[in-house]
């Protein structure tokens, strides 16, 4: 089944407050695997939009449909578990589990999502992904012992290790110096190449956006405007 995401008049208020003026009203559809970049001034709510689309927060009104299916059941906040397992979210602050080593940070999510998988297979995949993002050798380090760039690499590995069909990156190059941020951007491109997933990346760095996609979506004035071609 080709991944597709449809946002029907999705309205969201700023951050956790759940009240106050609505930040945006978005009505869009994405069909098939693609890399979509969303840009916008800081404070335009692009991060909140990504979290609403990515199932972190329930939309105030309107619906987010993954292949026609909604993540949030009408009754309460119970989330559709099987759909949730096909989503990978990479947070701006990395959200690394600081009580676990790098290796455990990768094994833990897989043990939750693929409980039947054998321990050895899981360890092999974790080691494979550590090499893929260039962190081989730092298996036993804790997140606070890593540099900014290395933490971001681990966060990306942890997001992709679940082989998700829907991938969300919240400003992956924020707070990094230009050289590290370019390395991370190239790493993303390399990892997402010919991967059948519908991917969204939020950023306000035009240099990086240019390397990801020829044109971008722009969140301004509470609406997600269609493609803007980058010079």
């Amino acid at each position, binding site marked *: 089944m080709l991944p597709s995401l449809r946002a029907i008049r999705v309205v969201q208020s700023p951050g956790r407050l759940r009240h106050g003026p609505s930040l945006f009203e978005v009505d869009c559809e994405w069909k098939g695997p693609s890399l979509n970049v969303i840009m916008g*001034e*800081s404070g335009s709510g692009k991060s909140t939009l990504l979290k609403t689309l990515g199932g972190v927060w329930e939309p105030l009104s309107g619906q987010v449909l993954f292949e026609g299916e909604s993540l949030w059941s009408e009754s309460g906040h119970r989330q559709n578990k099987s759909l949730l397992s096909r989503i990978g979210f990479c947070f701006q602050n990395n959200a690394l589990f600081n009580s676990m080593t790098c290796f455990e940070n990768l094994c833990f999510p897989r043990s939750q999502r693929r409980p039947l998988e054998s321990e050895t297979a899981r360890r092999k995949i974790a080691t494979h992904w550590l090499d893929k993002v260039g962190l081989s050798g730092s298996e036993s380090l804790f997140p606070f012992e890593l*540099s*900014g760039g290395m933490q971001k690499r681990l966060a990306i590995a942890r997001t992709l290790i679940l082989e998700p069909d829907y991938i969300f990156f919240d400003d992956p190059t924020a*707070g*990094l*110096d*230009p*050289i*590290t941020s*370019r390395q991370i951007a190239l790493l993303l491109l390399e990892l997402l190449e010919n991967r059948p997933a519908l991917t969204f990346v939020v950023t*306000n*760095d*035009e*240099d990086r956006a240019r390397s990801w996609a020829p044109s971008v979506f722009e969140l301004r004035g509470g609406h997600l405007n269609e493609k803007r071609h980058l010079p």
Partner: protein
Amino acid sequence: MIRFENVHKSFGPKKVLNGLSLSIQRGEIFFMLGRSGTGKSVSLKHLVGLLTPDSGKIWIDDTEISQFSENQFVPIRKKCGLVFQLPALVDSRSLYENLVLGIRHLDAVQKLARISATLKAVGLESLEKDLFERFPPSLSYGEQKRLALARTLLPDPEILLYDEPTTGLDPTTSLQIHDLIKKISKDFGKTSIVVSHDMRNALKIADRLAVLDAGRVVDLGTPEEIRRSPVAMTMAFMEDLQ
């Protein structure tokens, strides 16, 4: 004017400054660029005595300050104003009280005169009428940064030190901040040392740039020299600008 001579500094096992040698002329806008963790901010903090070097010499004008005590740094801090990466405003005090922290010795009339001139210089004249009622948390992050700059400017220091003034700011605001640095340095004849990793804006306003790597200067020169420089680290920084 300001000279580092083979300065070494390490925090426990981590060596941050590894023989830094550098000299900066009066009235110059001097940029120090480098990846995070290469000791840029640490070198600034040595100039105002927040850190003391393990070895090596540091001169400001013709006084050697590497072994100075806390009191000896008081006059130095009047001469060098440091603008921190975070606004570092005192949230529990009004904007006025924040601004006059550095000029408490002046009388009220002088204070107000200087404040209005400095607020105009940093583009915050609109705040002038409610300095007494408003508090830092009510300002936007960009405004807080400008107010912190005004606060550092008020004691009229000869040298201005900027610690990553535009990190965390969106592209448009950081452009405005860079223009502000240039205007203040040229209008008031201040020597400005700016630590940053924003090469594009640095090349626009800097008189000279130094590129640091692993606590040492690996490249030094005017913007033109830096654009054509064969040094690997500089080229890595330039890649974005093609």
